[in-house]
C-alpha cells in the first residue's frame, strides 16, 4: 500500500477526524481565551483533569453525557482559578498557566491514586459509540469520515460553527473580541473587562476539559497517565496557525490530525521499517513548530493578548 492509496482510504480519513476531535475542542477553548486577551497555558493540565473527571464520572455510574458535563465543570473550575489570578490580579499569564497545569495534573494523579489504589491497569468504561448518520454516511470516502463518528465528534464540529457565530455575529462576541484588542474602549462603554475576560477563560477552560474527556470517553475507553502527552501545547500552536479564527483553526486541526494518522500508517509500511519510530513520533511537534514559523509573519495577534487591564491605570 503506498501513500496515495492511504490518502484515498476511508479508514484513514475516519482516523484523522477522530484524532482531530479533541484538538478541535481544546483549540476552540484556547482561542476563546486568547481572543479575550488571556493566554491559557493551563490547557495541558486542564485536558488531563477533564480526561480523568469525565471517565471517572462514567465509571462511577453516571451517563456518558453527564460525564462530559462533569469534565466541563472541572475544567471551568480550573478556568476560574486561572482567570481570578490573571484577570483581576493581572499576574503573569505564563507563570499562572504553568502553575494551573501543574496543579490540575498533580490533583488528577492524586485523585486517580486515591480512587484506584491497587489497580495495575485502569478499568474500562462503555465509551461513546460511532453513530452512522442515515444516507450521509453512505457517501464514499467523506461519508464514513464525517458521518460515522461518535456524537462527541459531531459536537466538536457543531461547536466550531457556534463559536464562530457567537464571536462574529453577536454583541457578546463583539465585546469578547474587543477586550482582546482594546480593553479601555470596552470599559468606556460601561462593560466589565474583568467579567468578560473571566467568563471567556472559564468557558474556554471548560471546552479544553471536554477535549481531554474525548480521549477517555470516545477515542479510548480508559484513563492513562501521560495520555494527553503535549496535545494541549499543540493546540496553542494550532490557535496561532488558525490566525485566531475558528474555521481556520478547524482546518489546522484536521490537517494536523491527517498528518498524524499518516505517520502512524507510514510506520507500518516497508518504507518506514528502517526509520526509528521516534522520528515519526517527533513529526507532530516539528510540524507544529513549522506551522508557527510559517504563520508568525502574518498572524493577526489580538492586540491586548497577555496585557493585563487595570482600571484607572495610565
Amino acid at each position, binding site marked *: 500500500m503506498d501513500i496515495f492509496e492511504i490518502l484515498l482510504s476511508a479508514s484513514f480519513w475516519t482516523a484523522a477526524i477522530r484524532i482531530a476531535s479533541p484538538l478541535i475542542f481544546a483549540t476552540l477553548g484556547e482561542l476563546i481565551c486568547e481572543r479575550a486577551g488571556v493566554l491559557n497555558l493551563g490547557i495541558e493540565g486542564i485536558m488531563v483533569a477533564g480526561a480523568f473527571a469525565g471517565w471517572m464520572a462514567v465509571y462511577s455510574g453516571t451517563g456518558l453525557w453527564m460525564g462530559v458535563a462533569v469534565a466541563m465543570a472541572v475544567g471551568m473550575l480550573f478556568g476560574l482559578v486561572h482567570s481570578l489570578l490573571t484577570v483581576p490580579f493581572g499576574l503573569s499569564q505564563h507563570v499562572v498557566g504553568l502553575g494551573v497545569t501543574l496543579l490540575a495534573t498533580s490533583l488528577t494523579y492524586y485523585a486517580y491514586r486515591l480512587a484506584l489504589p491497587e489497580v495495575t491497569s485502569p478499568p474500562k468504561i462503555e465509551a461513546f459509540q460511532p453513530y452512522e448518520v442515515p444516507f450521509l454516511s453512505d457517501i464514499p470516502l467523506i461519508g464514513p469520515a464525517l458521518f460515522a463518528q461518535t456524537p462527541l465528534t459531531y459536537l466538536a464540529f457543531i461547536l466550531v460553527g457556534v463559536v464562530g457565530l457567537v464571536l462574529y455575529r453577536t454583541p457578546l462576541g463583539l465585546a469578547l473580541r474587543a477586550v482582546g484588542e482594546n480593553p479601555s474602549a470596552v470599559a468606556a462603554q460601561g462593560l466589565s473587562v474583568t467579567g468578560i475576560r473571566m467568563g471567556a477563560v472559564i468557558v474556554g477552560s471548560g471546552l479544553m476539559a471536554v477535549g481531554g474527556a474525548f480521549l477517555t470517553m470516545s477515542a479510548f475507553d480508559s484513563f492513562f497517565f501521560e495520555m494527553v*502527552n503535549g496535545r494541549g501545547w499543540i493546540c496553542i500552536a494550532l490557535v496561532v496557525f488558525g490566525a485566531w479564527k475558528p474555521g481556520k483553526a478547524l482546518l489546522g486541526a484536521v490537517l494536523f490530525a491527517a498528518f498524524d494518522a499518516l505517520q502512524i500508517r507510514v510506520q507500518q509500511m516497508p518504507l518506514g521499517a528502517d526509520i526509528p519510530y521516534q522520528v515519526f513520533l517527533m513529526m507532530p511537534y516539528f510540524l507544529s513548530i513549522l506551522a508557527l514559523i510559517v504563520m508568525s509573519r502574518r498572524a493577526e495577534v489580538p492586540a491586548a493578548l497577555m496585557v493585563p487591564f487595570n*482600571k484607572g491605570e495610565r
Partner: protein
Amino acid sequence: MRLEPVANPSLLRTTVPPAIAIGSTVVIASLLAMAAGANPFSVLGLILKGAFGSKFALLETLNRATPLIFTGLSVAVAFRARLWNIGAEAQLYAGALITVVLGTGLLQWGAFALLPTLVIASVLAGALVLLVPALLKVRFGVDEVVTTLLFNFIFLLFISMLLEGPLKDPMGMGWPKSERLISEARLPRIVDGLRLHWGFALALIAAVVVWVIERRTTLGYEMRAVGLNREAAGFAGIPVNTVLIKTALLSGGLAALAGFSEVAGLKGNLTLDLSPGFGYTGIVVAMLALLNPLAVIAAALFVAGIFVGADSMSRAVGVPSYLADIMLATALLLMVLAILLTRFRVVRE
C-alpha cells in the same frame, strides 16, 4: 476592584501575605491527606522528617536540590529578561547527552582535564538547544513558550532514539540505557563516605556566578532592562535581540549543567528517566526565589525537601507522593499572588 501601588509598604504588608500563602498551602495539603484517610499532622511531620530529619535524609535532599538549583537558575535568568524558557528539560538532557557521548571512553583523559571539558561541552550543548527557539523568536517572532515546550517532547524522543540505537549499552540486557561513564568522568564526593558529590558545590558556584553577572556586569544590567521594558530598553540603545540571545545561551547552559551533574555525580549513565521533570520544577524554584539567583539555592532546598519528604512519607503511610506536586503548584500560585499583594493594595470601586 482595581490595584493601587503601595508607596512604602509596611512590615506587616510585606510579611503577612507570603505567610498566609505558605499557611494555606499547608492547610490544603492537610485536607488532601485527610481525604486519603491519613492523619494530616503525621503526614506533614513525616514529610519534614523525611526531608531533613536525619543525616541520610538531609543528604538525599541536598542531592535532589542540586539539579533544581541549576534548572532554577536557568529559568530565573531567562525569566528576568522575559525570555520564557520552558525548555530546561530538553537542555538538561542535552547536557546529559554530551556527557555520556564524551565521557564513556571517547576522551581518555585524566579527571582534571576531562571534568572541565565535560562542563564546558554541556554548557555549549544546552546553549545550542535553547539557541534555536531564541533565534526563531528574534528572527520570526515565534513565541518561545510553545517552541521550548514542544522541543522538550522532541528532544526526549531524540534521546530515546539514541538510547535504542547508537548509544545503547551492549551489556544493558536490552534496556534503553547508555554505557557507564569512565571513572575519570565521574564527579567525586565532596567528603569521603558522605553521599554528596561535587555537583552540589558546582551548583552553589553557578548561583554566585549568575548573581555576579546579573548585578555587577553590563550584560546583567541589559538583561534586567530588557526584562523590565523591552521597548524602553531598545529606545535607550540596548541591543535587545543580542541580549535575548545571550540570555538564552546562559540559560540553556545552566540547565544543561543539571544533566551533567546528574549523570557524572549520581547516576553514571543516561536513561530516559534521568529527570523526573527537573526542568519544569525549575520554574517553580525560580518563581519561589523571586528570580533571585542566590535565593534559588534556598528555594531548591525547600522544593527538594518536599519531594524527598513526600516520597518517604508515601512509603510510610501510603498517601500518594503526588501530594508534593500539589503542594508546589499551590505554593507557586499563592506565592505569586502574595508577592503582588505586598506591593499593591486592592481598592474596591
